[in-house]
């Protein structure tokens, strides 16, 4: 187990280091970072001044070392547009992102598992077919179009919910539904086939034979074992939700980290982009690490892979 933990932790550190190198190095791949970030109508001297101000005139390894030594202390530099520490800007927006992704995660776990279980117990019924169609649709429709259509129907046409922004619960419904749509579809599929497999197992038949009530067999025996692959899937969901949040926040004008990051890319606010990428990646890596370690405890087999 210790070997497994050490291995996982090292990999996590490697990933974060890799992300920081990539996001940092890409700037230098473009040739002259100062020119790449400069506005179209800047003069030569303005660009030179900017280059010096940003420290781009130093060797790249000095710059990277500088970046890392500050970053580990939570100092990612100052925003070029807002003139405030970028880490502070990111942390300000973090709660909104967590609220959105957390809600979508809840929807995808609960609804995905419920749909999958019912679908598996009523195999080939009309209901099962409907879930199949839903999963096909869920996997073909990109999140930004799902969001647009939800706005069109529920906000514009029916007027039930607000189009965009953050406020009470009513503001959360559409973005969380849009973001959760794909993971619900995917989870329902996996739970369905996992349940079908388990329902045919001997211990389920034994449980039935000894006269246990149906729901108890279903939830106590079958579902418990069917959920093992789902745990991996829920971890995958987190990666999807993070990417999806960047897009969903932009559609619904949700004031989270994703929207801030997109705005930073459009505004060429480089310190903010770099910090956002590293912070989001680090957050993701930490969640994944936790899941991996929990998984090692739940299912001893994974430790020996």
């Amino acid at each position, binding site marked *: 187990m210790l070997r497994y933990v050490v291995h996982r932790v090292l990999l996590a550190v490697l990933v974060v280091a890799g992300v920081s190198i990539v996001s940092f190095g890409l700037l230098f791949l473009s040739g002259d970072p100062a020119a790449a970030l400069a506005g179209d109508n800047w003069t030569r001297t303005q660009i030179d001044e900017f280059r010096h101000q940003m420290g781009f005139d130093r060797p790249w390894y000095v710059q990277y070392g500088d970046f890392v030594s500050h970053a580990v202390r939570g100092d990612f530099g100052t925003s070029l547009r807002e003139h405030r520490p970028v880490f502070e800007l990111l942390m300000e927006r973090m709660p909104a992102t967590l609220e959105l992704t957390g809600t979508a995660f809840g929807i995808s776990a609960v609804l995905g598992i419920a749909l999958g279980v019912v679908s598996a117990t009523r195999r080939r019924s009309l209901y099962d077919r409907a879930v199949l169609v839903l999963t096909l649709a869920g*996997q073909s429709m990109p999140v930004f179009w799902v969001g647009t259509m939800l706005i069109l129907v529920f906000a514009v046409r029916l007027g039930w919910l607000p189009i965009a922004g953050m406020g009470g619960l009513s503001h959360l419904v559409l973005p969380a539904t849009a973001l959760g749509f794909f993971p619900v579809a995917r989870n329902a599929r996996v739970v369905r086939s996992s349940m079908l497999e388990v329902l045919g197992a001997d211990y389920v038949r034994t449980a039935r034979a000894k006269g246990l009530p149906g729901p108890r067999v279903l939830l106590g025996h079958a579902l418990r074992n069917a959920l093992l692959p789902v745990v991996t899937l829920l971890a995958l969901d987190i990666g999807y939700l993070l990417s999806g949040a960047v897009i969903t926040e932009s559609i619904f004008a949700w004031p989270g980290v994703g929207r801030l990051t997109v705005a930073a890319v459009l505004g060429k606010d480089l310190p903010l982009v770099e910090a956002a990428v590293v912070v989001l990646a680090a957050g993701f890596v930490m969640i994944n690490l936790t899941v991996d370690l929990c998984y090692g405890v739940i299912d001893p087999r994974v430790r020996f892979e």
Partner: protein
Amino acid sequence: MMLAPARRPALHAAPGRGAAAELMARLLRDRLTLAGAGILALLAALAVIVPLVSPVDPTATSLPDRLLPPAWVPRGTTAHLLGTDGLGRDILIRIVYGGRISLTVGFGAALIAAALGVPLGLCSGYFGGAADAVIMRLVDIQLGFPSILLYISALAVVKPGLFNMVAILGIAGWVIHARVIRAQVLAQRQMEYVEAARALGSSHLWILSRHVLPNVLAPVVVISTYSIAVFIITASSLSFLGLGLPPSTPDWGQMIATSMNYIRRAWWPSTFAGLALSLTVFGVSVLGDWLRDYLDPRLRVET
């Protein structure tokens, strides 16, 4: 690999209706494949032919014609079957040109991804050792965080454009190929034919390209097909965000993004562009499922 309509062996189907239901399921499935292939063929044909014969410019604006609804809605005209957008541009023609862009991005990026990932996966699996360790750690790193962060970092510093978009998606897409091919090669390496070729004095390059590669080609085709769907979604999502493609490009993501500006007044621009996008992704995915089952049933991921 996400899209695998259920067709498990009916181990515990209710007696009596198993065979008929199984046949129904199979029919439904083949119809799906047929529909998917049909959608793609139509889109590809339109994307190639229309720009050659149509006089309509997808970027030509006409303010008097702006926000005309589709032809079957009151106020709509047959001159613009699917209506016009906020600048009076014909939506149908823009969808067709958008298909050109989506197919270019999808196929182009998939080709680059395979061209990078396959050789790396071959070397990693065949030679093992330090090269394998380095390549696989790189794979671990890249799969360790969501790709969108990579795209965002790249798009923050490159100029928007179709070429850059294809290059970024393609270069970032090597990982899946490398990992799957490596696993395949590891299995092939144990085979006697490799040992025989080696004993006959063949070079490594010869063995890899002539003996190993043909045996691992099936997964390359399947992964590439799925990755086309992923690249099309990703590219349109990025251009929806305003990243990656220059404004005024008739791209589906961008069409939906601009339609958000007048979503209270016009439902058709976003609806039709998104429909085209989703149908295309659907078509590519079912084709991928079919290829997977047809080329290599062992690849089937039971999800």
